[in-house]
């Protein structure tokens, strides 16, 4: 069993856990993995081994993505894994590039709306506010370059 934490886990809790499920090979539900695989229209059938392997691979993937992003991310200083660590990974690491579309660099909707509003207003008033936004983004980019 991997990674069971040696921390201050109470004995009782541990016991329930162990008796709860046998030491399972894979923790993700195979049925759900199958549904996801079958949602791909060209797939007609999947044998049991392939299903198991895909589930297991997904687990390894989750661990790899998390640990990679933590190691290379900025949240490390704060002992945290954040969304921007993940989107950073998707952008910077070639292996994870296929995630770039679903893990876009974050911009808050509220901020975006403000930007739109400003743009509208500034259409008449000039463009100083927009430049401010650009600067903020640049700062972030610099920080990240330093961080990695």
């Amino acid at each position: 069993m991997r990674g069971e934490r040696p921390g201050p886990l109470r004995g009782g809790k541990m016991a329930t856990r162990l008796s709860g499920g046998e030491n399972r090979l894979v923790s993700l539900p195979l049925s759900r993995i199958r549904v996801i695989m079958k949602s791909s229209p060209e797939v007609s059938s999947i044998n049991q081994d392939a299903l198991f392997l895909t589930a297991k691979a997904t687990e390894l993937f989750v661990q790899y993505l998390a640990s990679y992003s933590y190691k290379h991310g900025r949240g490390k200083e704060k002992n945290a894994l954040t969304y921007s660590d993940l989107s950073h990974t998707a952008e910077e690491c070639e292996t994870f590039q296929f995630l770039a579309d679903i893990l876009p660099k974050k911009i808050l909707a509220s901020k975006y709306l403000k930007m739109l509003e400003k743009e509208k207003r500034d259409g008449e008033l000039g463009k100083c506010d927009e430049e401010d936004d650009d600067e903020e983004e640049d700062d972030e980019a610099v920080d990240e370059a330093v961080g990695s």
Partner: protein
Amino acid sequence: MAERPEDLNLPNAVITRIIKEALPDGVNISKEARSAISRAASVFVLYATSCANNFAMKGKRKTLNAGDVLSAMEEMEFQRFIAPLKESLEVYRREQKGKKEARKDKDKKADSEEQDKSREDDNDDDDERMEEEEQNDEEEVDN
């Protein structure tokens, strides 16, 4: 099959547990990070499936098998997963075999006849197989 979009999500509690196992103790995982990883995992499944399916098609097979998934890992540049995957596949196969034999033993007791037509390559199909097999087993018992 999957009609509702939430059917394509993986259970959050399980994902969180897997993430925690990968990180040092006490690391805080933001909620946003969790759901992002969960989405990423679903996309990974689809990506792997589509790669594996290409290999199956190249081999003119309709059913994805273990080799297709392993080839997909290589193509996706997740070679590092291949060795651990092969290991757990072996354990899994042993486990499945054990279960099957246990079931057979039960059948035998019910039937008291020896019918060891062991289906070695029954890993060959997917869900239909399960149903088929159930039926076959029943037939055997009836004989």
